[in-house]
């Protein structure tokens, strides 16, 4: 009997990263801006997408991939706004993985300009899995509290945009918006922050303008 010490040095998320890189390459080549939305359950991801849908559908082609543990409910809500949507049910898994997105991609029409991927509601696990997105948005809703960014650092450091959602509730909550912004910016000084209410529509147009700017950058990446 002999013992052997084998140096492996394998990234445990290497397979997911590789699939995600392939997806990103394909979508960017097709001029599709893919957006991965992360938040805890109930922060308002689907409601925000409904609000984006009613504004964006007049001028642009968008599609949505919905991730949930069970049910087709979120995809049905998006379809009701006249936007194509596909539901991925993970059957228990707490996050989407790139290979799940790769399976749905062939169904996405070629003329789509924006592809939103709504992750499973969870501020922890989805942060570790790239899905091939060009832009990652994390939502923090005001009822959750202004102390959340540093409790869930990975979600905030890996995101490009922070949406502070349910801003219409601010008068009723002890949520300090400046504290939430300052804490998030300590974690990620590059974070773009939007204060949004899907009820009053506050901030939704600004967010859409930002997304369309990002999409234009995709189309002329090496200018």
């Amino acid at each position, binding site marked *: 009997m002999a013992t052997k*010490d084998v140096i492996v040095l394998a990234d445990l998320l290497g397979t997911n990263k590789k699939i995600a890189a392939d997806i990103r390459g394909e979508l960017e080549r097709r001029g599709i801006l893919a957006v991965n939305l992360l938040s805890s359950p109930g922060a308002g991801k689907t409601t925000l997408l409904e609000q984006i849908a009613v504004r964006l559908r007049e001028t642009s082609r968008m599609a949505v991939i919905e991730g949930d543990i069970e049910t087709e409910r979120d995809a049905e809500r998006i379809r009701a706004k006249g936007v194509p949507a596909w539901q991925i049910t993970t059957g228990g898994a707490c996050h989407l993985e790139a290979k799940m997105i790769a399976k749905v991609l062939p169904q996405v029409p070629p003329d789509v300009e924006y592809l939103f991927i709504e992750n499973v509601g969870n501020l922890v*696990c989805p942060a570790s899995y790239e899905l091939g997105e060009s832009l990652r948005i994390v939502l923090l809703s005001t009822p959750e509290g202004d102390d959340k960014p540093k409790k869930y650092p990975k979600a905030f450091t890996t995101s490009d945009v922070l949406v502070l959602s349910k801003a219409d509730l601010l008068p009723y909550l002890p949520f300090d918006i400046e504290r939430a912004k300052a804490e998030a910016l300590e974690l990620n000084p590059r974070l773009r922050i939007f204060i949004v209410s899907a009820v009053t529509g506050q901030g939704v147009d600004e967010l859409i303008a930002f997304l369309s700017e990002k999409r234009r950058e995709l189309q002329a990446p090496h200018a």
Partner: protein
Amino acid sequence: MHELSIVAGLFETLLEQARTHGARKVTTVTLRVGKLSGVVPELLESAFDMYKKGTIAGEAKLWVVDIPLRIRCRACGTESDIQSWVFLCGACTSPDLEILQGTDMVLERIELETDDPPAG
């Protein structure tokens, strides 16, 4: 709790390596886990102990090495570790940082027993 799916991926690599090297038994597994890897080392250990049962790594010991979040400042070039989740250069407070390590989970090494005669 995505540690189980990470451990499932780990075992694919582990069993493949064990086969390649003609192992009879995997005795130790060493992982490098970054501070910003998004996993909890304790949960990783529980998932590992659950998963290893009945495999060639059934008696394997898992070592988890914590890797700090190390950055290099693009403004002044200083390298430092991020403390208290404030992403600013420790020397000049610039936010223009490059992350050098601490975001990944890496299977670093495994120790195996083989049927080969002892070397030397």
